[in-house]
């Protein structure tokens, strides 16, 4: 077997050292009733060309995912991924290392994470960022639990209903059974932003935090500054949740607007869509809360000769030391995705991320404009949005299906996620959507609505 080196001769030589007659001898101590002799009911092993053939056949069944014909966003975004990103991710020294327990021979990974933390902190406008979480959704849930740890006497978390529904679901799952914390949902107003009246109404001394999408699921840019002022007045924390990190290339940072904890999904930063995973949870907070933070942290220090170097640090928050009292159960995080995002952010740099964000603004607004040329199609909310928006489309579901038959995926039918938002499509355009593709979509929509 090409992955397993032992020859029969090797095995015999090793058994001889062990004084055993057979490998069987080594597992004879297992209870008889459990020993399995039938073998596994799986197909025989394949050679490499066969694996490639098999999986290529799977891959080729996928159709219609190209930005030429798909206008899907809603929590996962097609973006350019410079090939250098993938080249670095494929460096075996990065890919096949473990969590950097022995820092002396893991400085590569450690320095990358340190750089990642620096970039994320800067992007989110907060003082410290951790070494990554699984994804934006679970990072949101961890942020909510962290708010509770910071304000342990408080028992409620307010969550905007306009936060990407899967994120809300994950928060809900994490909260189920978590003692002393319940979730209250807050609606949106006619602008598509968090309903400030509802917020005012619910913000009391029982509330440990307010979690809101930035942008929210409608692509609308929430007024984090206003929310955080209200939250602060009530002694609560503001949690900003960004499912589309590219937006932060142009939007004011959550930290600068008053957020205490900010999380984001980093998939847009150089990580392929890959049917939704792996993604990358970005997590940052004010430095005074660092000891309540979940996840790993890398810090700078010096070696015995005074050379600068990096180590995992503040580990007393973590499960392998604190066990049931840890700030989180997370162990393996998304290190290689953090590398991808770091390479991506270095390539784009100061100028590029901003330019990329602006291009997304432009493409999606052009998309909205073009689509509005179809009869009865209108923006659902009159607010600034980033790269996706909600359009009212008469008989949206039927129109969506008609377009699909023509090979266009017209975003999602929002009613599937919000029963009260009927006849709405959520559509997205990024830098990968060409003018031609947008205009073709516009034309097909015009035909489809009639």
């Amino acid at each position: 077997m090409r992955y397993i080196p032992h020859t029969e001769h090797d095995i015999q030589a090793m058994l001889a050292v062990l004084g055993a007659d057979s490998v069987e001898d080594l597992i004879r101590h297992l209870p008889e009733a459990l020993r399995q002799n039938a073998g596994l009911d799986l197909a025989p092993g394949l050679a490499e060309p066969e694996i490639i053939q098999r999986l290529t056949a799977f891959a080729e069944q996928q159709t219609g995912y190209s930005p030429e014909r798909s206008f899907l966003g809603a929590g996962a975004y097609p973006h350019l991924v410079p090939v250098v990103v993938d080249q670095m991710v494929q460096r075996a020294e990065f890919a096949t290392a473990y969590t950097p327990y022995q820092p002396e021979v893991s400085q590569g990974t450690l320095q990358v994470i340190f750089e990642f933390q620096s970039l994320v902190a800067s992007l989110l406008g907060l003082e410290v960022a951790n070494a990554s979480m699984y994804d934006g959704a679970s990072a949101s849930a961890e942020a909510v639990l962290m708010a509770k740890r910071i304000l342990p006497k408080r028992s409620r978390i307010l969550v905007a209903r306009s936060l990407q529904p899967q994120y809300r679901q994950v928060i809900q799952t994490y909260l189920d059974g978590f003692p002393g914390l319940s979730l209250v949902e807050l609606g949106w107003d006619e602008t598509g932003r968090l309903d400030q009246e509802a917020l005012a109404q619910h913000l009391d001394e029982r509330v440990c935090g307010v979690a809101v999408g930035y942008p929210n699921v409608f692509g609308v840019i929430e007024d984090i500054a206003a929310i955080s002022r209200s939250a602060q007045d009530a002694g609560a924390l503001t949690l900003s949740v960004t499912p589309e990190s590219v937006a932060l290339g142009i939007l004011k940072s959550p930290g600068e607007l008053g957020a205490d904890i900010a999380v984001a999904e980093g998939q847009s930063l150089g990580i392929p869509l890959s049917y939704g995973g792996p993604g990358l949870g970005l997590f940052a907070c004010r430095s005074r809360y660092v000891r309540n933070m979940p996840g790993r942290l890398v810090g700078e220090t010096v070696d015995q000769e005074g050379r600068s170097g990096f180590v995992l640090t503040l580990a007393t928050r973590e499960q392998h030391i604190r066990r049931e009292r840890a700030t989180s159960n997370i162990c393996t995080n998304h290190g290689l995705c953090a590398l991808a995002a770091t390479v991506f952010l270095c390539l784009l740099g100061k100028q590029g991320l901003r330019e990329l964000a602006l291009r997304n603004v432009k493409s999606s607004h052009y998309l909205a404009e073009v689509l509005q040329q179809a009869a009865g199609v209108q923006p659902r909310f009159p607010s600034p949005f980033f790269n996706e928006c909600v359009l009212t489309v008469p008989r949206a579901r039927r129109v969506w299906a008609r377009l699909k038959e023509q090979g266009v995926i017209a975003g999602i039918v929002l009613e599937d996620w919000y029963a009260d938002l009927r006849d709405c499509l959520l559509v997205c355009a990024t830098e990968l959507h060409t003018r031609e593709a947008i205009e073709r979509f516009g034309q097909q929509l015009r035909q489809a609505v009639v």
Partner: protein
Amino acid sequence: MKTPTRTPGPGKRTMLNEPLISARGSVGRVGYALPRDDIPERGQARDLPVELCREALDDFPEVSEGEVVRHFTRLSQWNMSAATTLYPLGSCTMKYNPVVNEYMARLPGLAQLHPLTPDDQAQGALMLLAELERCLAEISGMDAISLQPAAGAQGELTGMKLIRAYHQDRGTARKKVLIPASAHGTNPASAALCGYDVVQVATGSDGMLSADAVATCTDTEVAALMVTNPNTLGLFEREILQITDMLHQHGALVYMDGANLNALMGVAKPGHMGADVIQFNLHKTFSTPHGGGGPGAGPVGVKNILAPYLPIPRIAHKNDTYTWSDTAPKSIGRVRSFYGNFGILVRAYAYILAMGGDGLTHATRMAILNANYLRKRLESVYTLATHEPCMHECVFSDRSFQQTGIKTLDIAKRLLDYGFYAPTIYFPLVVSGALMIEPTETETKETLDEFADALLAIAQEITDQPDLLKQAPFTTPVSRLDETRAARRPVLRWSRSSDS
């Protein structure tokens, strides 16, 4: 620029320093280009009011593409990795990560697939997931699988949520979870995240969990036992059947930590041991790369009694068509967005295809052989944590050298000089100064011998030149780092002022 001094060293190496990327670059330099903008000019202010816009991303680098390539290529070389040397981290199963899996995960039809693509246009992806579920069920002996959890710990969390939902469904909100002292830290942390009180069960001096010990803790308040089998000492829990029976009799369930599944494939099925739920660490048993700390994947497998509670969405199969189904009224909900770490699942599936049933069984048997072989080669000089026969890993304690002032840490550091990554140290906590070695099945006998020889040579050094060990490593990019300082005065990011 520092002047290199004259210091010939042993072995072959490269010698390139590399500062933080923030120390590179020049104002206005770029490493990218966007595609041509052919969209009619609209004016930013019209689309996005300036008051919503941030200042420039001040701390961001400004570097060329070539600088980026050099920076990360240089950094990569400072890592040891499974691709460059034996990485015998116990409990982590650092086996060879087949390169073909990397290519498979990058097939455009998989890598570029949007997760909200209508199901009928994603049949290949769905079918692949359905097949992977079937394979994992067969290997583990469980009835149903959810591929959603992102890593082992999230699998544990999911599993404990399932157990909680099960008890709640029966109207009995039990409060306690039993966990052996030898368990991995994620076990108690996951249980606590679900609001359970963790009750630690003592393990015997042989490192095993005894049915008796469990019995003394078991009552109707116990929701579940979390057990790892083989346990973190690499031992097969001899009384596992009695233990799981007893728990079931008390109405409690059994969570089995499947991180050590590499010791069981084709040899024994957790499903037969009384496990009600188990997580798989695909980044261990199923060869997906660890990535310097993820991404992994932590699917859960359950018995039928827990299936109704599995996370949504689930894969449904009807008339040769696969769909995502949300209709599971008893589901615990979602633990992450979309469907799990698909890219990792693809790699694991490719691995299973390559190995086949016989190959996986062979892998397990060779993993066990390798661990036993190392154990044998070392046991006369290093003190075994227990004398029970081991499975896929073996654990030593620091007992035999405690008098010398040498710590397990020193041995680990010295091993780096010999060109090997260190074993897991100080875990499991039940062993004094544990040294936990998991060679995996992909290492050659020659490498195992070199590694054993190194550890034996180090044992000799403990006697002959203990100071050498205390200051090791000597041949690494940096020497021992001041961890106390890192924690006392945390520097967790660069800032412009610290750049100088």
